[in-house]
């Protein structure tokens, strides 16, 4: 384990702060404590989902079904709560995680058991899960009138000035940090992504880890499904459409390598925050709504380019340094 934050993460953090300050210049309300807390609350689900996705990308995989999983689980728990209004919220959350985890496990088994490429599996289950929402709900939308007050209350609850969403995201973040830095499983994830053959020689089983990460991602998506549906008070087939790409973009901006083996918890959290700031700032700084999509596209590209560059040093120099280190050591 090297230092907790890397140079790349510092650059990203600096970009986020600079961006927030610039937005604040135009719209001072952006920098109020309330708004900052709101942005964090609004980004909480993205942070959780991005962290889970990171573990999948670390193993050289990708999970495109997360948003569909979120929507399906959200619908299922909304239906459940509708049918059994007495169920306590912790039980609902556990059920959401179980359903989401189950859907993730399906991905994991297809990837690990049959060796189908993750992008194919999750492209397929993405369609299947989305369609399943339509089927289970008979095509209907569930709105807040179909949900109990307790069901709707949790995401709005506050503890010590922090929203429950923020607290859940914080807990998930700490969990992932411990997982990735302090457990064998976490280090094994880096190993299988960095060099799958070598990992096998070290007795690290890729299939087991794949089942684990897809199930984990599913579990988090399931939890996010409840939070999302309860927060917006609506469930239908198309909620969070296209959200999987936002989740992946968070990872990439946060420095997770699509080629596997590289990525960190702080980086991914920053990547998600970056997108959260952009998403919340654009409607606020009064740019024409028609500009928002183009700007967020350009900003994603710019962030990735800057972020790649900050890490980028000529390959040759790395060699020379290595050689110098080697030469220095030999004397």
């Amino acid at each position, binding site marked *: 384990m090297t230092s907790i934050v890397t140079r790349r993460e510092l650059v990203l953090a600096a970009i986020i702060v600079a961006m927030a300050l610039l937005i604040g210049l135009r719209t001072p309300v952006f920098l109020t404590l309330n708004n900052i807390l709101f942005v964090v609350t609004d980004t909480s689900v993205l942070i959780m989902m991005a962290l889970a996705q990171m573990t999948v990308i670390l193993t050289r995989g990708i999970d495109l079904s997360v948003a569909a999983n979120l929507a399906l689980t959200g619908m299922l728990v909304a239906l459940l709560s509708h049918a059994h209004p007495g169920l306590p919220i912790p039980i609902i959350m556990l059920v959401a995680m179980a359903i989401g985890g189950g859907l993730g496990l399906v991905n994991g088994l297809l990837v690990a058991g049959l060796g189908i490429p993750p992008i194919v599996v999750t492209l397929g289950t993405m369609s299947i899960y989305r*369609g399943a929402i339509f089927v289970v709900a008979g095509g209907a939308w569930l709105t807040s009138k179909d949900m109990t007050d307790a069901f709707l209350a949790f995401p709005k609850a506050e503890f010590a000035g922090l929203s429950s969403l923020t607290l859940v995201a914080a807990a998930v973040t700490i969990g992932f940090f411990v997982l990735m830095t302090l457990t064998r499983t976490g280090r094994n994830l880096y190993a299988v992504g960095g060099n799958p053959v070598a990992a096998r020689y070290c007795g690290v089983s890729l299939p087991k880890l794949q089942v684990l990460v897809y199930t984990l991602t599913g579990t988090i998506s399931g939890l996010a499904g409840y939070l999302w549906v309860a927060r917006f008070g609506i469930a239908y087939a198309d909620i969070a459409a296209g959200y999987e790409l936002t989740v992946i973009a968070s990872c*990439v901006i946060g420095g997770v390598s699509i080629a596997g083996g590289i990525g960190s918890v702080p980086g991914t959290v920053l990547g998600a925050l970056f997108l959260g700031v952009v998403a919340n700032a654009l409607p606020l700084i009064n740019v024409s709504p028609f*500009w928002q999509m*183009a700007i967020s596209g350009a900003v994603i590209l710019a962030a990735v380019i800057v972020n*790649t560059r900050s890490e980028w040093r000529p390959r040759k120099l790395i060699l020379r340094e290595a050689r110098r280190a080697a030469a220095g050591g030999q004397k």
Partner: protein
Amino acid sequence: MSASEPMADLPLPHSPAPEAPPPQSGPNQPTSNQSARYTVLDRKPFRLVDLLLAWETILVLLLVAVIGINTWISPYFLDVFNLSDATSNFSEKAIVALAMALLILVGEIDLSVAAIIALSSLIMGLASVAGVGTFGLIVIGLSVGAFAGAFNGYLVTAIGLPSIVVTIGTMSLFRGIAQVVLGDQAITKYPEGLQTLGQTTLLAVPPLPNSFYIFVVLAVVAGLVLHRTTAGRRLYAIGNNPVAARFSGIRVERIRFTLFVLSGLASGLAAVLLTGRIGSTRPNIALGWELEVVTMVVLGGVSISGGSGTIPGVVLAVFVLGLTTFGMSLVNVPGIVINVLLGLLLISAIAVPLVVRGILRGLGR
């Protein structure tokens, strides 16, 4: 080995194995087929299992099944006019899928194709409003596509960003630009000629749309280029090992760049046909097509990590997907439920041969 002749015509004694070992004594000597060690066949010996488990075979079977089931569930399916109409709904996507197949084959991906269609259509619309004629619009549509593709290609090859990341970004950027310009407006003023291209047919029977004929021609060209020319060889080499390809004198970056331009060009062509077909441009035109196109390519057996796949496979997948969708919508199954079916189809088409091979291997032991 002869050494006296010049390299120019490679003197080659077809001597069977100078190294063929002399028979040895001793209890541990394997003596069987020693002399056969160096006979090298020209081609892989034919095995029925290979043919039966080839991707294309599976797709053909699937296609037959789809046609059978559709005929069974709807009396309207086997009708020349209906089938011809059905092709117009997937021909444009299929054209983009051909270019995408080549791109995925070299280990890249372009998720911005649908956004490029929107951008091309927009610029064509602006030009049309300014009075440009049909031919001019076609040129403009294609060039905008090519430029957008070149932009992706530049970011991937010159700056070295992963293509999935670049094209997730340009996906928003290109469509965003269309939205900036169009706002809540639509462009509906297109010349007669463009609409003729998009809406009519070359032949009365079968009344297939022009876009379908274009797709067929392009599929043949793509198939020939990929499977019969040296350019195709280069693509396979890059897809399997870009470093070795570069060391072998293949201009890897240039080819990658070209393929991005080609993908943009195909999207531009799709934009021309689609704009002509619906005669209208709005920022959300072709929304979500990128995933449908990728699904066509992947179901077609092109390995998502690059290096393997065929054009016939992609063409078969186009028909499997297109006809499944059409058949299901004939009995009014909602689109989202059709998607469930397509998802299952995608996974099982890939899973079944893997499982069968696994079982065969188990039996063979």
